[in-house]
C-alpha cells in the first residue's frame, strides 16, 4: 500500500516538473489570440526572426474575439504564479496588470534601440508604467474610418463627404437608390465604435474632455446631446435586421453593394482586400467626416511579465517586435499601421499609407487619442458603462437628453 502511494507521488511530481520546465531558459512562451489565417501568418514572421536568434517559441493561443478568453486564462496563470513570458494585450488591461506589480522591465532594450523617440507619446502612455517600459507595441489600429463602396458613392453624387451634413445627404441619396446606407452590426462594441467617431467629430477638445478626462460637464453637456442626436440619425440609416450582426458580415454588405458604407476600424480593410477589391477603384477609405487629422486608436502590445528565467529571451523578443522590418511585414498583413513612426511605407497600400500619414499628423498635433470603444480611453468598468448607455440609446431606449444624463450617472457609478 505504502509503495503504491509513494509511486503515485513520484509520478505526479514528475508531471508537475515536466509542466514547469516546458518553457526553458531560451524559450519565450507567448499568450495571444491571433489565430485566424492572416494573423497567424503575420505572427510567423516574428517566430522565424526569433529562431534565427536561437530563441524558441512556445505558442499559447487562446482564441476568441477581443481576447476575453485569453485574459481569463491569463488570470488563472498569474494567480497560480506561473506567468507566460509575453502576453498580447490591449489598452487599460495593460495598466491594470502593471498596477498588480507583476510585469517585467524593458528599459535596457528600449534605451539601446531608442524607443522613446519613435513611439508616439499617446502609445507610450500604455507601454510605460511609472516611467519604465513594460510592453512592446506591435501595431496601431485606428477606428475612425469610413469604408465606402465606390459605385454606391458614385450613384449618390460621387463626392466623398467631408462634413456631417454632406455625410447625411450622401446617405439619404443612397437610401433613395434603394440600398442600406450604413452597414452596421448591433453589438455593443460596434455601436460604441460609431459613438467614438461621432464624439471625435465634435472636436479634439471635446473628445479629450468627455472620453479621456471623463468630465461630467462634457459627458452631460449640449455637445453630448448633439452626439446622441447624430447617433439617432445614423440609426435611421441602418437596416432593420442589424442587431447581433458580426462586423465582417456588415463589411460583406458593403463589398457586394447591398449597403453603401461601414464605419469600422482598419481591420475591416482586410475583408475588402480579401474580396479582391482595390482601394480608390472599388472602395474608398476616408476618415469619419470632421475627424481628418485626428485619430482614435487601439494598439496591440506584447506585455512582458516578470519571470524568473528566460529574461534574455524576453529582451530578444521585445527587440524583434520593435524591429522595423517586422513592424512593416506584420502590419501589411494585419491591416493596421506600425507602432513606430520611422517605418518606411513602401509595402503598404493606399489606405495603409494614408493611415500612417494620419497617425503621424495626429501624433504631432495632439489629435491622437485612445479609443473609448476599444478600451484605450478609460478602464474596463467605465468602458462598459459607456457601452450600456450608447447601445441602449441606439436601440431606442433613451431620448438624446436622457442618454447624455444617463451617461454621466453610468460613468460615475463605474468609477
Amino acid at each position: 500500500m505504502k509503495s503504491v502511494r509513494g509511486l503515485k507521488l513520484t509520478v505526479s511530481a514528475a508531471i508537475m516538473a515536466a509542466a514547469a520546465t516546458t518553457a526553458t531558459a531560451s524559450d519565450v512562451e507567448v499568450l495571444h489570440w491571433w489565430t485566424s489565417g492572416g494573423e497567424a501568418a503575420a505572427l510567423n514572421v516574428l517566430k522565424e526572426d526569433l529562431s534565427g536568434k536561437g530563441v524558441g517559441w512556445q505558442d499559447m493561443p487562446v482564441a476568441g474575439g477581443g481576447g476575453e478568453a485569453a485574459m481569463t486564462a491569463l488570470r488563472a496563470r498569474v494567480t497560480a504564479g506561473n506567468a507566460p513570458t509575453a502576453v498580447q494585450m490591449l489598452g487599460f488591461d495593460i495598466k491594470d496588470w502593471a498596477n498588480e506589480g507583476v510585469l517585467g522591465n524593458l528599459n535596457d532594450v528600449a534605451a539601446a534601440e531608442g524607443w522613446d523617440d519613435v513611439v508616439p507619446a499617446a502609445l507610450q502612455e500604455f507601454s510605460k508604467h511609472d516611467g519604465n517600459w513594460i510592453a512592446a507595441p506591435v501595431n496601431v489600429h485606428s477606428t475612425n474610418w469610413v469604408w465606402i463602396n465606390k459605385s454606391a458613392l458614385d450613384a449618390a453624387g460621387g463626392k466623398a463627404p467631408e462634413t456631417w451634413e454632406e455625410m447625411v445627404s450622401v446617405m439619404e441619396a443612397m437610401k433613395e437608390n434603394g440600398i442600406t446606407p450604413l452597414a452596421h452590426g448591433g453589438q455593443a462594441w460596434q455601436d460604441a465604435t460609431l459613438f467614438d467617431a461621432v464624439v471625435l467629430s465634435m472636436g479634439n477638445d471635446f473628445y479629450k474632455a468627455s472620453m479621456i478626462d471623463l468630465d461630467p460637464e462634457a459627458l452631460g453637456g449640449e455637445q453630448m446631446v448633439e452626439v446622441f442626436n447624430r447617433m439617432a440619425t445614423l440609426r435611421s440609416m441602418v437596416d432593420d435586421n442589424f442587431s447581433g450582426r458580426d462586423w465582417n458580415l456588415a463589411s460583406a454588405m458593403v463589398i457586394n453593394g447591398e449597403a453603401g458604407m461601414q464605419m469600422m476600424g482598419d481591420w475591416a480593410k482586410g475583408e475588402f482586400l480579401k474580396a479582391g477589391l482595390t482601394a480608390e477603384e472599388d472602395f474608398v477609405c476616408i476618415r469619419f467626416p470632421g475627424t481628418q487629422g485626428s485619430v482614435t486608436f487601439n494598439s496591440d502590445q506584447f506585455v512582458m511579465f516578470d519571470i524568473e528565467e528566460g529574461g534574455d529571451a524576453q529582451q530578444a523578443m521585445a527587440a524583434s517586435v520593435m524591429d522595423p522590418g517586422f513592424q512593416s511585414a506584420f502590419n501589411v498583413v494585419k491591416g493596421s499601421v506600425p507602432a513606430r513612426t520611422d517605418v518606411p511605407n513602401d509595402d503598404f497600400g493606399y489606405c495603409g499609407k494614408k493611415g500612417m500619414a494620419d497617425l503621424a499628423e495626429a501624433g504631432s498635433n495632439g489629435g491622437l487619442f485612445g479609443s473609448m470603444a476599444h478600451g484605450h480611453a478609460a478602464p474596463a468598468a467605465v468602458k462598459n458603462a459607456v457601452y450600456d448607455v450608447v447601445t441602449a440609446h441606439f436601440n431606442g431606449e433613451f431620448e438624446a437628453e436622457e442618454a447624455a444624463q444617463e451617461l454621466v450617472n453610468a460613468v460615475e457609478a463605474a468609477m
Partner: protein
Amino acid sequence: MKDRLQEWVPRLVLAPSFLLVLLFVYGFILYTGYLSMTDSRMLPSYGFVGLENYQKLFALRHWNTALTNLAIFGILYILISSLLGLFLAILLDQKIRAEGLIRPIYLYPMALSFIVTGTAWKWFLDPGIGLENVMQQWGWENFEFNWIKDRDFAIYTVVLAAVWQSSGFVMAMFLAGLRGVDNEIIKAAQIDGASGFRIYRKIIIPMMRPVFLSAFVVLAHLAIKAYDLVIALTGGGPGRATELPATFMYSYTFTRNQMGIGASSAIIMLIMIFSIIVPYLYSELKSGEQK
C-alpha cells in the same frame, strides 16, 4: 470486526468526495460571499468595504433590467412548461398506440444543450433568414415576426426556446406521476359516474402535488441559472434587453473588472435559489418523518 468494517467502509469511500464538495462548493460559496464585501476589481483583493457593493448593485439600472427579465422569464417559463408538460402527459396517458415512439420525440429536445437550442432558434427567429423570410417567400408578404430584434419582445423569444427545450422533460415527470396514481381510485370514480375531465381535475391532479413541486424546483433553478441560452440566442441584446442575472454576474466579474459587484450579484442569486430550495427540502423532510 466485520461490523466495524461495515460501519467504516461507507464513510471511507464517501470521505474524498465529501471533502471535495466541502471545499469546492461550500468553501467557494463562502469565498464569494467574502469577495462581495471587498474592493476586488480585476483580481481578488481584500480591502473590506462592507455592503457597499450591494448598494451599488441595486442602484444599477442594468441589474434591475436583469431582475425584471428574470421575473418575466422565470414566471412564464415555469408556468408554460408545467401546463404544456401536463397537457402532453395527459394526452399520452390515454393509452394511445405507439406511445413508446411518441414519448421520446417530445423528450429529445432535453438531450440538446442550451447552446444548440439557442443557436437553432436564433436562426429560426431571425427575420432575414428564418420564419419571417420563408413565409414572405411563400407569398404572405405582410407576415411579420421580428420579436428577437425588438427590445420589448426579445425576452419572450428566450421563453419560447426554453419552453421548447424543457416541456418534454416536464411531460415525462408528469407522465410518471400519472402512472403512479392508483387505478382502483380511478375505477371507483368511474363507477360513481365521474367524467374523464372531472376525474383529472378533482382526483388525479390533486394527487400529483409532489410532482408539481419537483417540477417547480427543477424549472426554477434552471431559470435562475439560465446563461448559455441567452448567450447563444440573443447575446443579451438587442442592446442589453435580455440580460439575466447570470449573464450580469459573468460580465461584471470577468470582463468588466468589477469583481466585487459580480460577487455580490452571485450571492443574491444564491439567496434566490435558497429561498426556493429550503422550503422544498423542509417539506420533503417533514413528510419523510411522517412516514
